[in-house]
């Protein structure tokens, strides 16, 4: 099977023209993009065509879309928030810089839940993105714009960010591949911070091989990110064809408990059966703290967010409200600039860290986080990867969960564990529901085991294509 990148067009400008024409056709309805960089993209594509005889790169001429929380020096970076409307970063995020160096042509910036806070892309200050498989449904979130752009064929690959599932869940709901690398594998320099101990830069593609190639480009140590891992980079794409022998797949029993849509359960179980037919052994494992992971996540993520988002105060950049003194300026700029979900999470984080509650909430969450990490270590003692559903349901309807934040948070139930423990995880399509909506299987691997994860993911991909 040829991947989107392998069958790409010979000339960068032709590839870009195709990409822009699909965008012109489909984006008025889907609204995947917040900003299109047609002019600078045309210049970049032309430069690659002119240089083609003596320069090449692993992504030469590939049109790529970037989630709008990754800094780009030549286009706006808003995080889909009013408070950053008109903001232009003076520098590129490391991941963006590495893409450009490898030849990628940045087509534009994609829609998202404001600051990455949400699971449906409805929390964008600039209007929601719609699911290409059914425009009445959400694409998932928070990287819904990037997921929809790839699923609709606007670009072959895109970058997102994943703090609690924000790449894997929209990948599942849009029927594409979405990778969250290990914490620290890809530099966070230029990724606007939400939950700093959870944030990762992730990748969307239509195939595992395409995602592997992009990972090879953006991964690797970066001295500008103090949490960047100084581990040797691997050739993830070449490694894909290494044989997988004696594969043991752990199936956490907690992932098939209450709240899982029966159709999703059936399709994921069929994908597991396909692994068995390929010679893999399924191992029953337990992640006993799964029922508490969501509470841990919403304490840790909101506490970190309340601190990270203190920088948006109307003083140094972004929107400033009129005020007579500095205190009012902070309060009014933030009151007018942030949307409802961002306010909710800042307040939840402020609560978790406030005097008198810090021990009961934040410290307790950090202890439970240790237990969650230990659950994974125990499980990986008896298996190579863990497999289960990515999301408990298929894509839900726009507006369906907006009034009930807790119901929205439950969309992340299977994905947050990997962020809390820092593990690499991927969502791969494993079929469609009777209504034609995509379902994803999630695979999780030990820290820095991306090469193994991608190889095993490709097996699921091939099995699913046969059906």
């Amino acid at each position: 099977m040829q991947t989107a990148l392998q069958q790409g067009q010979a000339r960068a400008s032709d590839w870009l023209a195709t990409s822009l024409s699909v965008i012109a056709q489909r984006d008025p309805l889907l609204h995947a993009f917040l900003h299109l960089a047609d002019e600078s993209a045309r210049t970049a594509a032309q430069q690659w065509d002119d240089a083609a005889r003596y320069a090449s790169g692993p992504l030469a001429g590939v049109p790529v879309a970037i989630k709008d929380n990754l800094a780009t020096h030549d286009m706006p970076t808003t995080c889909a928030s009013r408070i950053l409307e008109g903001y232009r970063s003076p520098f590129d995020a490391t991941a963006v810089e590495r893409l450009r160096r490898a030849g990628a042509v940045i087509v534009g910036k994609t829609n998202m839940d404001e600051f990455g806070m949400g699971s449906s892309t409805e929390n964008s200050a600039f209007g929601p993105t719609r699911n290409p498989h059914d425009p009445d449904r959400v694409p998932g979130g928070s990287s819904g714009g990037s997921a929809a752009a790839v699923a609709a064929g606007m670009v072959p690959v895109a970058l997102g960010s994943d703090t609690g599932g924000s790449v894997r869940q929209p990948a599942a709901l849009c029927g594409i591949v979405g990778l969250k690398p290990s914490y620290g594998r890809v530099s966070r320099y230029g990724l606007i911070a939400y939950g700093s101990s959870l944030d990762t830069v992730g990748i969307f593609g239509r195939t595992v091989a395409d995602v592997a190639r992009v990972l090879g480009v953006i991964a690797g140590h970066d001295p500008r990110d103090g949490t960047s891992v100084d581990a040797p980079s691997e050739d993830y794409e070449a490694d894909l064809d290494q044989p997988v022998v004696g594969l043991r797949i752990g199936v956490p029993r907690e992932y098939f408990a209450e709240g899982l849509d029966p159709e999703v359960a059936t399709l994921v179980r069929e994908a597991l059966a396909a692994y068995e037919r390929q010679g893999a052994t399924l191992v029953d494992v337990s992640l006993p703290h799964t029922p508490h992971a969501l509470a841990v996540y919403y304490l840790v993520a909101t506490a970190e967010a309340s601190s990270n988002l203190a920088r948006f105060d109307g003083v140094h950049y972004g929107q400033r409200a009129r005020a007579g003194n500095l205190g009012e300026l902070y309060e009014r700029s933030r009151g007018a600039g942030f949307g409802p979900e961002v306010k909710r999470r800042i307040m939840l984080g402020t609560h978790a860290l406030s005097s008198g509650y810090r021990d009961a909430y934040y410290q307790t969450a950090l202890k439970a986080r240790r237990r969650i990490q230990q659950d994974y270590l125990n499980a990986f003692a008896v298996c190579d990867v863990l497999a289960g559903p990515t999301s408990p349901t298929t894509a839900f309807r726009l507006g369906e969960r907006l009034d009930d934040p807790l119901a929205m948070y439950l969309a992340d139930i299977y994905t947050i564990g990997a962020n809390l423990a820092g593990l690499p995880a991927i969502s791969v399509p494993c079929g469609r529901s009777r209504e034609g909506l995509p379902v994803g299987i999630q695979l999780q691997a030990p820290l820095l085991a991306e090469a193994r994860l991608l190889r095993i993911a490709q097996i699921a991909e091939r099995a699913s294509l046969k059906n």
Partner: protein
Amino acid sequence: MARLDCPGVAKLARLARLDLTSAELAVLTPQLDAVVEYESRLGELDLEAVEPLAHPLDAYNHLRDDAARPSLPLSQALVNAPQQRDGLFAVPPALE
């Protein structure tokens, strides 16, 4: 665990430097209360001797050589400033 009420949420908003309308407060209060109640389920766990985990990697400080390096030029650092004066960010008075 203590429940969140309107005055409690108003106090949190002041701590978080968020100007909220009374309509926003009325909507937010039951929503936040429901989430905080959900979070309280962690109280069920016995975490007596468990070491807190703040970070997924064995975090340590990466120190670089203490040598001067070029940084963002002033003009670029101020490029997004809502208001600037004499190469500084300008703000209204902090004290009346």
